[in-house]
């Protein structure tokens, strides 16, 4: 490994807050979001039902970046490494959108009957649902939702506060206080995995109360990781054009982040193949309708697109070392992956309701953009509110020493 002096890692430069540049990036994302809001409004009056389904898609999509950021942030605290030092503020800003996600949950909470079959009066005559009524009932659903938000909110609040404290203190040697990130992140990750698993059951899987798959929580976790890695690479490829990110987000760092995204692409495929193969070969009446619906009729081509664009294409492109090291190339792969995350969520949620037509609906994308119009400004504002690089983390210099160029 090349020897390097750390002169370019001057703390004063790294601690700068490029608010103007970030503001410009933020206003650019507003244009798309604004269009989404308008379309969503139209959709609201055209079809309430589809609006609600698409709302759930948009909500779960943005929530997956909020929670994925929390998860990857905690993994970074546990493992260290330059890739995490560079991505850290992006994830911290991502987690700070949680209050918005709490408010945006209310439309779902107030429309349980519109979305969840078990919440409708007919469910009283469904013998299978009756067997699960101890879990699938509105009061317990709300209690769990509150519990999820309290746990996520607690972790997010504490990690962000400690990180701010670290910025305010002058750089120093590693002290007893710096272990606290790690001490919290271990148990924190366990809590996150458990809550996201139950969240995936409550908010997504129970749309069809007959279906169950033990890998569902893992699929949700993997999807969150994939979406967050793609989002991180996309944001970083914009931030890298100016200081201070230009000094730290070297091709080596993009390479590492690209490899992680590559790993998540393969994990996503692995989890999905596992689920498909096991359900397909057992061919049990309580499970197989999930795939009968999705591999036939209007959803067939959506499945094909997912296979090609969320696995085959990113897989082939991300094999290339040069592509992973080039921000302006890898961001296109990240964009495709993010769009495919939306399609994947529609593929998971949509077939419960839509059995004819084209499967994908324009409202799905409109609502992703519309919720993004609220989520992204909050994200950019949080990002601009803190130094972009955690230069005062005592582990920072050591982590960056491993970065060549």
């Amino acid at each position, binding site marked *: 490994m090349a020897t390097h002096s750390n002169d370019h890692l001057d703390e004063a430069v790294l601690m700068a807050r490029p608010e103007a540049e970030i503001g410009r990036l933020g206003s650019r994302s507003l244009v798309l979001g604004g269009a989404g809001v308008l379309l969503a409004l139209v959709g609201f009056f055209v079809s309430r039902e589809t609006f609600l389904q698409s709302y759930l898609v948009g909500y779960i999509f943005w929530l997956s970046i909020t929670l994925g950021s929390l998860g990857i942030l905690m993994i970074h605290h546990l493992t260290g490494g330059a890739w995490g030092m560079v991505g850290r503020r992006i994830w911290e800003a991502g987690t700070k959108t949680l209050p918005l996600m709490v408010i945006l949950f209310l439309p779902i909470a107030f429309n349980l009957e519109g979305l969840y079959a078990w919440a409708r009066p007919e469910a009283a005559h469904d013998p299978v649902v009756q067997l699960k009524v101890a879990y699938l009932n509105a009061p317990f659903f709300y209690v769990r939702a509150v519990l999820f938000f309290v746990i996520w909110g607690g972790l997010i609040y504490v990690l962000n506060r400690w990180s701010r404290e670290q910025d305010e203190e002058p750089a120093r*040697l*590693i002290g007893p206080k710096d272990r606290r990130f790690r001490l919290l992140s*271990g148990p924190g990750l366990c809590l996150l*995995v458990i809550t996201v698993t139950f969240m995936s059951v409550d908010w997504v899987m129970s749309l069809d109360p007959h279906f169950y798959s033990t890998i569902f*929580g893992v699929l949700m976790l993997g999807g969150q990781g994939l979406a967050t890695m793609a989002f991180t690479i996309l944001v970083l490829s914009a931030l890298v054009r100016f200081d201070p990110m230009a000094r730290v987000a070297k091709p080596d760092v993009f390479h590492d982040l690209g490899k992680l995204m590559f790993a998540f692409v393969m994990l996503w495929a692995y989890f999905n193949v596992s689920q498909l193969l096991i359900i397909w070969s057992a061919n049990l009446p*309580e499970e197989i309708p999930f795939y009968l619906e999705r591999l036939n009729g209007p959803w067939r081509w959506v499945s094909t697109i997912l296979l090609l664009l969320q696995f085959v294409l990113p897989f082939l492109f991300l094999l290339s070392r040069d592509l992973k090291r080039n921000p302006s190339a890898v961001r296109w792969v990240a964009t495709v992956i993010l769009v495919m995350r939306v399609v994947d969520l529609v593929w998971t949620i949509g077939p419960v309701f839509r059995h004819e037509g084209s499967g994908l609906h324009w409202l799905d994308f409109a609502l992703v953009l519309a919720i993004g119009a609220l989520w992204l400004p909050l994200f950019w504002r949080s990002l601009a509110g803190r130094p972009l690089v955690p230069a005062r983390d005592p582990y920072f210099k*050591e982590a960056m*020493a491993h970065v060549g160029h």
Partner: protein
Amino acid sequence: MSASEYPKGDPRAPIPVITPGHSFTSITDKLSDMVLTYNTPLAWVITTAIGFCLLMLLIVALAYLVFTGIGIWGNNAPVGWAFDIINFVWWIGIGHAGTLISAILLLFKQDWRTSINRFAEAMTLFAVACALIFPLFHTGRPWLAWYWLLPYPNTMALWPNFRSPLLWDVFAVGTYGSVSAIFWFTGLIPDLATFRDRAVHPVAKRIYGVLSLGWRGSARHWWRYETAYLLLAGLSTPLVLSVHTVVSFDFAVSVLPGWHATIFPPYFVAGAIFAGFAMVLTLAIPLRALYRLHDVITLRHIENMAKVTLVTGLIVVYGYACEAFFGWYSGSEYERFMLKNRIYYGPYAWSYWALLLCNFVVPQILWIKKFRHNLAIVFTVCMFVNVGMWLERFVIIVTSLHRDFLPSSWDMYYPTFWDFATLAGTIGLFLTLMFVFVRVLPMISIFEVRTLLPEAHPKPQHEEGAHR
């Protein structure tokens, strides 16, 4: 992390990968003298003798099996698969740590792996060998097994069932075994050349010379070698996932409650790594004491391996929790019955609770750094995990089979003496192979450990740190 960022003498500073003070020569001397010597430690002789006795038991058990038939095992009508598949999965799982350490940790740039990868890889090969004995002898006539297992154009135009995961097992384990062997041997070549140059006895010199394939250590050799090694690491990485995924399919693609769960593939893989790391620690701790390897296998290694054990153990527990929750949530009568039967209702409920004790309760002790640094505690936890991972397969296989859909066919399963003898025998085979390996080949990769020394990284004075 290098220690440079910590205040001097801070007890929280990470332990270096190699105890400072070693040079290229001292490392090479120390590691090659373990093999190129006439002094065999007494503890080595005793352990190998025990292993060898058990190996003899294996031969007796297998000979009796071949002459009599698999009726000597406790397998019966509902439990048609028991010790044979439990032990197969147990051994295959143990074999996973080797590839993970050598391939995935290499790709993750975890340089501490170099002190442990060689014997972990050897362990993988020996564990795979032990595993293969079970399905092979379960066929009853193992000398005919090739005709049944391998797809080849025969005169009766009969093919094995390509839809059966048992056939995929043949391919998956076959690939895994051969790639692991190539990887292991490739890694050995430079060290074999060192042995060739250092051995005094002419026969030893000759053998090491042939095995080192004409290695001269030229720059060109090294360049090709490093490329090949990295490529092999890339090829081996998917194998870490694929083998136990296919093993999990053996169960999961069926319709039997307790077997049919979509989480099985990742959960089996995590379990395999969990078992594998526990076994690496089980071997590393005594070997480290026996050969006084404290400078090369430091507490840093023990701690890191303990952490991997803890994390993969938690993933396994997540699997148990998902199985239990979704078993209830499914609303299926059979799933719920299986769950009740497994947890408190059935005659084998004790094994589920013993499993939770071994794999869930005991490993939690590894959260505490002080205990991760205590060899006796880490060793004890690993013994629990070794037992726990065996029990896990017992729970999955026997508990699910002994109460199937039809109450009239329910029966209990009792292993016979020969079941235990075969299990103990494979442990003997494993121990024997492992200790013979330690005696005749470099147990720790000499050339890779040398790269961890400060000598290998000439740096400007102001930059400290023992490694990259």
